[in-house]
């Protein structure tokens, strides 16, 4: 899922003008699950704004990244002067695209695509590079999880299974090595991985996917 965290409250306050009507718009999908922008968080933020003197309301729609859900909340959106979106970056942009006349600010920082590892701990797993090869690396993506995105093995900085740049981060290559060793598949690592085609990744600018078979 998409992981996000709420912006510092001071930054959110800095977006707002005294006296205006504010709508805090939550999103019911990823950011609800990672506890940063769901109904509960939207309610908390609007209550806080209320206490600070703003006329604030909150509402949460199922998926802010999809136009039809935003359009369903048209009335509340139109009623507000300013909207703090508690969706991921996709949600904020969708909302702004369909309500171009509105003042909209992001209430979250979208951090990554990842998984909940423990209660209160989320870890990145995927960059969305457009060319998945995790099966070659013991299902541990080196593009995402190695600080240098190395495809041919660990750099010289791996120590006690940890990455040289952050001691609380596992070295992705240690994990890859351990998993393949356990599965007796170390020979996979002997092959030289050629340079990647990054054009499928975000280095090629905005990406689009067209599915003729499902187009209307």
């Amino acid at each position, binding site marked *: 899922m998409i992981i996000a965290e709420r912006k510092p409250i001071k930054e959110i306050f800095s977006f707002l003008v005294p006296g205006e009507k504010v709508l805090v718009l939550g999103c019911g999908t990823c950011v609800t699950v990672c506890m940063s922008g769901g109904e509960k968080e939207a309610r908390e933020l609007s209550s806080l704004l209320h206490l600070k003197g703003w006329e604030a309301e909150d509402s949460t729609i199922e998926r802010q990244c999809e136009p039809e859900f935003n359009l369903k909340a048209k009335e509340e959106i139109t009623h507000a002067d300013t909207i703090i979106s508690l969706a991921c970056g996709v949600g904020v942009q969708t909302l702004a695209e369909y309500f171009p006349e509105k003042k909209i600010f992001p209430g979250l920082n979208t951090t990554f695509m990842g998984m909940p590892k423990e209660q209160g701990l989320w870890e990145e797993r995927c960059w969305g590079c457009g060319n998945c090869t995790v099966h070659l690396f013991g299902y541990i993506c080196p593009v995402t999880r190695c600080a*240098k995105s190395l495809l041919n093995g660990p750099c010289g900085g791996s120590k006690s299974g940890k990455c*040289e740049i952050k001691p609380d981060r596992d070295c992705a290559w*240690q994990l890859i090595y351990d998993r393949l060793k356990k599965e007796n598949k170390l020979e996979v*690592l002997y092959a030289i991985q050629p*340079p990647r085609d990054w054009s499928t990744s975000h280095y090629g600018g905005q990406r689009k996917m067209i599915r003729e078979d499902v187009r209307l």
Partner: protein
Amino acid sequence: MSALQEILRRGEFAVTAEVGPPKGVNREVIEKKCDQICDFVDAVNITDNQTAIVRLSSFASCLIAKDKGIEPVMQMVCRDRNRIALQSDFLGACAWGVENFLCLSGDHQSMGNHPQSKNVFDVDSIQLLQILKNMRDEKVFQNGEPLKGEIKAFLGAGASPFADPLEFRVIRLAKKISAGAQFIQTQAVFDLEIFSRFMEEVRKAGLDKKAAILAGVIPVKSLSALRYMQNEVPGVVVPDSLVERMKKAKDPKEEGVRICVETIEQLKKIEGVRGVHIMAISWESIVPEIVKEANLYPRPERS
């Protein structure tokens, strides 16, 4: 053929030393370092923004070294340049007569003085080796398009015998050699026991016959420097016995030199070690003494 390659081909024990470019434009800094060590090494290895700190470029520094009559090894890291820039700089350096290249991944930018920068890592060091080898041997760019002219390049790579996972280190070395590495420079050796075991595995895999392995050494000036090596430098293992020895030393600088010289003496005895690479970081002036003390002076005639 580069002088370094020729010395190794003749089976002579090679000596190279690292030279770090300055944080500024003063070419005299490089000239002075080159003058100090010129007669004592076969080539100088010039770092490419090491530890991700911005310095005068390796390419330009290599030309300054050449002006001083000393053969450079140009380091190329994958952190800051994509395949377009790496290939372009390789051509440029070849056109200026640089003949030795060391391909490295590069220290992560978070360790340097511009931690907010983006890294590149379009290719990794193994892929870079393969690209440069194909440019030299097949006369093609990475995309398969032909290039013009003869390239003389002696290609090298780093090896990290002390970093985890230890068992993977020989596999990775084998990959580097099959990608095109003709010489290998190892991370600094302090722990001879681990290094000997690594070399045993290297010999078992026949890799010492396929590439010339130069063992890295670092002379340390003080106990704190040695402790820093022990605790902070990724991929370096310093045995406690050396720390104890340094603690008792009356003259730490002298002791640091002695440890370095003794390490070289031991390395010379290890089968498959074809030379040493002295990384006297900000202490290049000590290189002559180390080379003399280790009975590696005079250096063989350069062709």
